[in-house]
């Protein structure tokens, strides 16, 4: 079972690859769009890569509600456990 910290680290790695943002800047309170330079297409990519990495499903309707890194980490954590 992955911890919150492990999921955050995994998401940070993905955001780093997609948005070219340093891993340490990807924190739970950060907004993907406002703080991490993601636009809607980058957001899609982050979601798809997260599904792959953590083996979870994030339907498009739910993905729309994931505004911050914390939202995404919490969703992945629930889906995994």
């Amino acid at each position, binding site marked *: 079972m992955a911890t919150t910290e492990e999921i955050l680290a995994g998401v940070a790695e993905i955001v780093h*690859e*997609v948005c070219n943002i340093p891993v340490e800047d990807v924190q739970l309170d950060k907004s993907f769009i406002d703080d991490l330079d993601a*636009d809607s*297409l*980058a957001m*899609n*990519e982050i979601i*798809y*890569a997260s*599904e*792959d990495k953590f083996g979870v499903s994030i339907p*498009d309707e739910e993905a729309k509600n994931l505004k911050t890194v914390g939202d995404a980490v919490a969703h992945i954590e629930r889906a995994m456990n």
Partner: protein
Amino acid sequence: MSKQITVVDGPHSAILGIGSYRPSRVVDNAEMCTMIDSSDEWIRQRTGIIERRWATDDETLMVMALGAARKALDHAGLQGSDLDAVIVSTVSHLTQFPAIAPQIATELGATDAAAYDILAACAGFCYGLAQADGLIRNGSATRVLVIGAEKLSEQLDKTDRTTAFLFGDGAGAAVVGPSDEPGIGPVVWGSDGAAKDVIRLTRHWDEPGDEPPYIHMDGQPVFRWASTTVAKKTLEMLARAGLTVDDLDVFIPHQANDRIIDAMIRTLKMPEHVTVARDISHMGNTSAASIPLAIEAMFERGEVKSGQLALIVGFGAGLVYAGQIIRLP
């Protein structure tokens, strides 16, 4: 038992020549934004498209296809009369039948060549190439011309801010012929008809309406499918040819969107040394024509060389996808 049927295996096949036709009229993002409420920056950021080509009235599907075909024949050092099959992939031949391929064959002097159209949208060039490879290897044909030709501007609602700026016109062609070494790898292809509505025409041709049917696309599911499902299938294309990404010199995905190309590169962990086609920036999405157009552009810019190994993959309305490894002519 009655007498057996005689079958003769053919040789390996390879692409012998590539050619393309770029329509004369350039439509840049500034002009685009006189038709739709958008901006150059938004279009570039979301798609990588700087400009596209829209054919003039004189630049018919036939004119573009013939232009590409003649260049491909020249490149291969062959004449139309050397062809014994012509396959045209298009979604833009609005006269449903007869097919345009026999007319093209006749214009080229390919007398009595087998000639037919296929409709596999943006995967059409790779579908056609797979057929050409099969026809040559089973001895049914010796030299096959594969053309991808599109005049999508005729099927665009030029006021639709979700599609108008994406699509362009053009044609590309490849001459496929016998080869001592395999020059075309096994195709990996498939379809998903459950997703038929995500890229489609707005209505049936015989339904009443003031305007013709237009191209409609739901961007998000297409983006998801292309950057996940199709990207993973490309690994199978490599595996079936006994290769890995490290063996590749060139990656030429269908030019639909720069961001899909970026996502594919990340999924495939494409090494830095692989040259990636980015013809989308000057042509937009030209459906079945995009891959041969991109190949010729890369040759013209000196980015690729004859003999290099390239992975090509097309994907689009159907949904359908197809791809294979090729050795560049």
